[in-house]
Each structure stands twice: as structure tokens, then as C-alpha cells.
């Protein structure tokens, strides 16, 4: 046993910092911010509460920005292998910011609004992302960072019940759409922009709010009987059960969308034969890799351990003859599925569902099987 080292570096705080401490959160450094990893209820209880009721997450460390101008969609589309141009106003989509080698600099969410494209990127990548976007397309559209905005996520089957009580109308949104709403806390009316989406596999919302009103909004949500505060620890176990990638673990600047098995994020219009095929960084090599997969190339897969032993990130994966063939990138005992689940990379020859491999945990073999994701069924609201 040894305590984790604590960072002495100056950490930024979110507008909910005082609230986290008041709630008894254990704070840890994350993406340069002091963030709540768990509250007194603990990770397991927080995870289960989000799956059964509604959990409130502070994700204000994430980056928010706007792209403004008539050419913004076309310009932004040139940085990602996804369809931006045809996205209708009010609709949200998952995107991948690629570097010149086709590696995933970051994954992000964007939504077309009347006057702009609103983008949410990962906290740890936001400075580099904004610099990259500015340098690449800053002459074609305005790239406007929004450091004045906080971001809250309300997730779980009862999120809509809790939020619609304060902001009537949000219940009409379907998964991956958004709009402007006013949240009435009883004492104030707080304007927000929210989307019906999240990072847990459950129904829910992500709510962008001015930093001066974030605390009041969070307290109003926590006052709803369905809602409890949830830390980053449960956020990680929830997203892994939902089969969602964590940038920096499961995907990174050295991983292409093909290796990452994220082809579902590449709409047909950007692929070979599509009306706007290619035209994104490394599009030639990425499209070639889709059209004729190279033997031995690696692929992200889901894995379930056949013994009750958690298999964590960086665990070596071997074939049944003891040859090292890959590595786990995220893994834990899934609190809802109640078994050890993981993501990792294997050669495509080993990526078929049901393929047996061995994880080497502290020198011992733990048998694993390639499994379908999500590990826990998703419950998105599609209307």
C-alpha cells in the first residue's frame, strides 16, 4: 500500500470547486484541474446511482469553443473524417480531429447551431486543439474559445424528469440534438445551451452555462430528489461499460480511426465512393486501410475476463501460445455488468468476437475473450 503522489503544481479550479469541497469530494489533479474523483458515497454507489436515477457531473475542465462564419462547416470538415457540411441545425455529432499522419489528436462533440458550430473537446487536449484549429482554419472562420463557460452533465434514466421540472421543453429533445433553454431555479432564471447526450451510455444532458451561474445551476439540480453528485471515477467506469473511448488511453495521436475501430463515426459521404470522399488529414492512407485492411494491423476490441480478476490498462495480451500480441488500454471490474471488462488492441486476426486471448496479470494468466461493446446496453432517448 502506498498513497498516490499528490501534485504540487498549480492546478486550475472549476466554478464548482467550493461546492465539491462542501459535498466532501476527494479532489485529484486531472487535465490540469483540481477535480472530484469521488464523493463520500463512493465510486460504486455513484456508478449505480447514475444507472438507476440521475447523476450530476462537473466536466468544466473540458474545452468549449465556437466556429463562426459562412465557411465554418466546410473548413472544420477538412480537419476530420466526418460529415460536418450536411449536419442540420440542432443536430450533434461525434468527431475526430486528425493529425497529418491520420492519428487522433482528440475526439470531440459538435453541434450545428443557427449562427455557429459549438464544439466540446477534451480538457487535456483543449489548448493544443484550439491552437491547431486556429492555425488550420482560422483564416476561413472565427475560432472563438469559450473559457467563460462551465459544463455540467446530468446523466441517468431520471435525468429528464429532474431537468424538465426546472427547464420545461428539454424532454422533447432526442439523443444527439440540442438547443437553448432557461433553467428556473426558483430564485433565478439561468440561460443555458444543452444537448441530449453524454458519456455514460445513459439518457441525459450536457449543459453549457456561464461560469457565474454554474454553482446556482448545480445546486438547483442537486436539490432534485433524483440527483446526486458523481465523480470522475464513476464517470470512467460508466463510459467503459458503455464502450466509449477515453482519449489518452484507448485512442491517441498514434492511433488512426481505422485502428480505433471508429468507422461508424465516418459517414459514407467522406469514404471512398462518397460525394465528398477524402479531403481530411491522411485521407489517402485511411481510406486505403478501410478498403483493403492490412494483415496484422491492430484493432481496438472489447474484452471480458473469464475469471473475476480486473485487467487494467497496459496489461500485456498474449495468444494461447504465449506470444505477445497486444495490450489493454482501459480495464476495470464493471460495477453494473459485475465482471471485469476492458478495451485493448489486438491484431485484426484476433479481433473476431469470441476469440480467446490471455492477459498477463502480475505474472499470471487471466483468460479473456473478445466481446461486443457496449458491455452494458445503452439507453439513449431516440424519441
Amino acid at each position, binding site marked *: 500500500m502506498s498513497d*498516490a503522489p499528490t501534485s504540487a503544481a498549480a492546478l486550475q479550479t472549476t466554478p464548482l470547486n467550493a461546492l465539491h469541497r462542501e459535498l466532501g469530494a476527494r479532489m485529484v489533479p486531472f487535465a490540469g484541474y483540481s477535480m472530484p474523483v469521488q464523493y463520500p458515497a463512493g*465510486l460504486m454507489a455513484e456508478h449505480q446511482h447514475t444507472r438507476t436515477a440521475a447523476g450530476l457531473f462537473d466536466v468544466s475542465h473540458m474545452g468549449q469553443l465556437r466556429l463562426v462564419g459562412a465557411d465554418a462547416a466546410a473548413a472544420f470538415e477538412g480537419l476530420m473524417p466526418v460529415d460536418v457540411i450536411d449536419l442540420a441545425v440542432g443536430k450533434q455529432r461525434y468527431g475526430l480531429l486528425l493529425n497529418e499522419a491520420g492519428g487522433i489528436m482528440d475526439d470531440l462533440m459538435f453541434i450545428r447551431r443557427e449562427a455557429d458550430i459549438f464544439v466540446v473537446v477534451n480538457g487535456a487536449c483543449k489548448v493544443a486543439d484550439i491552437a491547431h484549429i486556429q492555425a488550420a482554419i482560422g483564416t476561413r472562420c472565427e475560432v472563438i474559445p469559450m473559457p467563460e463557460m462551465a459544463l455540467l452533465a446530468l446523466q441517468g434514466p431520471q435525468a429528464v424528469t429532474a431537468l424538465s421540472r426546472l427547464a420545461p421543453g428539454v424532454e422533447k429533445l432526442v439523443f444527439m440534438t440540442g438547443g437553448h433553454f432557461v433553467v428556473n431555479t426558483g430564485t433565478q432564471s439561468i440561460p443555458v445551451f444543452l444537448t441530449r447526450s453524454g458519456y455514460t451510455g445513459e439518457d441525459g444532458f450536457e449543459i453549457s452555462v456561464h461560469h457565474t451561474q454554474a454553482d446556482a445551476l448545480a445546486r438547483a439540480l442537486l436539490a432534485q430528489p433524483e440527483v446526486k453528485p458523481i465523480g470522475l471515477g464513476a464517470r470512467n467506469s460508466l463510459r467503459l461499460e458503455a464502450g466509449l473511448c477515453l482519449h489518452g488511453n484507448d485512442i491517441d495521436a498514434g492511433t488512426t480511426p481505422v485502428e480505433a475501430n471508429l468507422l461508424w463515426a465516418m459517414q459514407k459521404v467522406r469514404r471512398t465512393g462518397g460525394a465528398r470522399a477524402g479531403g481530411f488529414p491522411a485521407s489517402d492512407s485511411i481510406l486505403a486501410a478501410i478498403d483493403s485492411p492490412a494483415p496484422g494491423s491492430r484493432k481496438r476490441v472489447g474484452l471480458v475476463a473469464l475469471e473475476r480478476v480486473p485487467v*487494467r490498462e497496459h496489461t500485456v495480451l498474449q495468444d494461447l501460445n504465449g506470444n505477445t500480441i497486444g495490450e489493454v488500454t482501459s480495464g476495470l471490474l464493471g460495477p453494473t455488468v459485475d465482471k471485469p471488462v476492458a478495451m485493448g488492441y489486438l491484431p485484426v486476426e484476433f479481433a473476431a468476437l469470441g476469440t480467446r486471448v490471455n492477459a498477463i496479470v502480475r505474472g499470471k494468466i487471466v483468460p479473456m475473450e473478445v466481446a461486443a461493446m457496449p458491455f452494458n446496453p445503452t439507453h439513449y432517448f431516440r424519441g
Partner: protein
Amino acid sequence: MTLKFTPDHEWLQLEDNGNAIVGITVHAQDALGDVVFVDLPEVGKSYAKGEVAGVVESVKAAADVYMPIDGTVTEVNEALRADPALANSDPQGAGWFFKVTVANRAQFDELMDDVAYTKFSDAA
């Protein structure tokens, strides 16, 4: 009943037969969070002080459990293996990890008592 503590946040309690019961402290389980898995040492195996004798994992972290003194493992807590949450609910009781012979009594005696450990863990 003599209770001792290590800088690795383990406790040892001397039994009437001279063997020691070993577990993790309240402070340790609190730092780890919800324990979901334990790996326990082999009964009959001898360890030197400081060797890794097991593992305790929460959903968020894994930590080694060190052998706090030289000795031979006489028993492990099968109930803990079946229900790792005992390490959280009763860390200094039903959540014990293993029992070990005390090969060198001086090693045991020089460990921290509860006053010294409370001071140590408060400073950590």
C-alpha cells in the same frame, strides 16, 4: 493482544499462538475506495519482510500488499476473497487478509503502535 502498523498502511495483530493476523488499515481502504478484488498469498509459503504478498484492487486503483515481517503464511481469509468489500466495511476485523508466523519478534516489535501510526497517517 498487541496491535502494530506499517508505513504501508497495514495492521498486524498478535494472536495467542504467536502468529500475526495482517490486514489493511481504515486509512488504506479509505484511500483506495471500493475494494473489488484481492489476491492473497499462498498458504505454507515463506516470505521475507517487504516482499509482495498480495494485491488489493478498487475500481480505480490496484495496490500491492507487502509482507510486513519475515514469516510463513498459515492461513488466508477466503471470506475476503469471496467478498472483497469486507476490506472496506470491516478492514480491521472481518476484512483481514492473511495470518503469518512471526519468525523474528524484533521485526514485529519495532513496527508503529496505534499512536505513532495515527500521527503517521494524519501526516500522509
